[in-house]
């Protein structure tokens, strides 16, 4: 087994996703401790240029037309073949809409241990330890990784994007696909790509708003949304929401803040009845001030917010809106 740290590079529509750089930053720290190298693994078609700013010692590039758009089975087949020949210390994936399923699939195929929701891996007495954040961010779990190859699915939070970028202008090292053509073609027959849809512009672009009145499960019912809208109107801001609100169709997808929605940087982010799961908080860390209102004192949102209120938002909102209106 080598001491190298592999990082699976996520990209969509020709753009490297932020989580890839964060993982490279993590990998650099671990490789320095293990004495190995950081190896970025880039799969795709005509995307060799993405290698240039990756903070890795080596970028392995597998190019194939059937890897142009992300097909789980095809990326899995390539990684499986790659890892059958190599035994790195760790392989890092994003715990994202792309990497999460791949890490699980690879774990099943190769019988490799997997740690998900991982916030950080750190060296400890010659071994690597992980810290994962589960139960919507309410619990941390720590443990020692085995000294054999392990798979890690990482959530953002511990590393910055800039730390994983490089000015050295890497070039990609092509890796041949020996014998995989047939498998990729066969898989591709099972998946027919119909096209991408850009996020709906919607009535409001929440990434440009100075004030966001954002609601989570604590709003309880669709009828109560008008309370949030009233406050947003009074503050000349907009209403946004966390995943459960969008899944209930109470707000359109264009208003979703979080992992599969928008990343926002308002001056004030009012988190109303939002518990603060990592999938949500990763998209609001750029806000100047987060004000959280939640009845649950142990809600993780209070660990991120600058200001907190422990009250029922349904009691607070009408009074607050009246007060704001009175100021104008």
């Amino acid at each position, binding site marked *: 087994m080598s001491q190298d740290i592999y990082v699976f590079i996520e990209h969509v529509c020709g753009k490297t996703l932020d989580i890839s750089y964060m993982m490279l930053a993590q990998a650099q720290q671990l490789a320095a401790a293990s004495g190995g190298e950081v190896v970025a693994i880039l799969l795709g078609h005509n995307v060799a240029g993405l290698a240039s700013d990756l903070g890795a010692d080596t970028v392995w590039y597998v190019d194939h037309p059937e890897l142009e758009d992300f097909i*789980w089975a095809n990326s899995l087949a390539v990684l499986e073949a790659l890892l059958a020949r190599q035994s790195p210390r760790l392989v890092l994936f994003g715990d994202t*809409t792309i990497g999460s*399923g791949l890490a699980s699939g690879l774990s099943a195929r190769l019988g490799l241990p997997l740690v998900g929701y991982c916030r950080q891996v750190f060296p400890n007495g010659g071994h690597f330890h992980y810290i994962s954040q589960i139960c919507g*961010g309410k619990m941390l779990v720590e443990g020692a990784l085995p000294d054999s190859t392990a798979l890690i699915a990482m959530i953002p939070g511990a590393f910055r994007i800039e730390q994983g970028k490089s000015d050295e202008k890497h070039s990609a090292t092509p890796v041949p696909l020996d014998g995989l053509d047939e498998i990729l073609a066969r898989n591709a*027959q099972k998946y027919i790509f119909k096209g991408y849809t850009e*996020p709906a512009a919607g009535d409001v672009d929440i990434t440009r708003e100075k004030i966001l009145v954002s609601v989570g499960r604590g709003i309880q019912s669709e009828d109560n949304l008008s309370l949030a809208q009233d406050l947003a109107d009074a503050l000349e801001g907009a209403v946004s929401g966390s995943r459960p609100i969008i899944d209930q169709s109470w707000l359109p997808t264009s208003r979703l803040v979080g992992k599969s929605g928008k990343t926002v940087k308002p001056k004030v982010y009012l988190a109303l009845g939002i518990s603060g799961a990592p999938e949500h908080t990763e998209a609001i860390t750029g806000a100047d001030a987060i004000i959280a209102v939640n009845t649950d004192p142990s809600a993780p949102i*209070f660990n991120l917010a600058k200001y907190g209120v422990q009250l029922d938002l349904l009691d607070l909102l009408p009074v607050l809106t009246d*007060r704001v209106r009175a100021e104008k």
Partner: protein
Amino acid sequence: MKILVPIQLVPDLVEELVIAQDGKRLDLDATRWIISEFDDHAIEQAILLKEKIGGEVTVIAPDFEGTEDVLYQALAKGADQVVKLSGDFQSELNTHALARLVVHYLQTKSERPDLILTGVQANSSLDGSLGPLLAAYLDLPFVDCVAQTEIEDQKITVRKEYPGGLTADWSVALPVVLGIQAANTPPRYVPISKMRLAMKTGSIATEEVGELDLSGAVDSTRMYTPEADQRAQMIDGDVDQVAEKLVALFKELGVL
């Protein structure tokens, strides 16, 4: 069309979470277990597909405190069969082990499902997601983070979500495993009368499972609540006092 929906129970995050005496895991007895919200969407999507093109929906779940309620609820929503996997899960059931139990269950059946729908994630799974594990063990195609599902001529068309709000539409051949992020419409409400009827007339099949194979996960040595680098500065008082302080804060922050 045969649809299988393997579901998981997860800790209710609204309730207080208690760490077990060994300091490594949740106290299972002190935890209130509920259906994972994404699994609830998976059941809904299965019922929606059945309502559209017919077929048979089977919901399968490991036996935890609360599993029977969840399964009767699935029956009340329109599932045709519900199955409880019975075994000693108190030691710990991880996602890899659950995936193997579902694979084993399928191996004992003469017919394979055309479609397996699972929730995209479970909030307490430290060792990955059920959907891709199943797809890899069963050698089936898999699409993750599916927020819309349509079916026509033995082909499923799904909308997969990517970070940042981008989506992609894929047509996938059956049989396939889907990781459901959201059903086409929100999970339906089950009136108490329907639930009572399901409990009276429906039945839960029980499948005994053998020894668990927990490999694929990594042991934990410690579980603890996050210590915040910074804790929010709490604004105290009754509703009127807090509203007044917030107005002052909005002014200070330059937004009012």
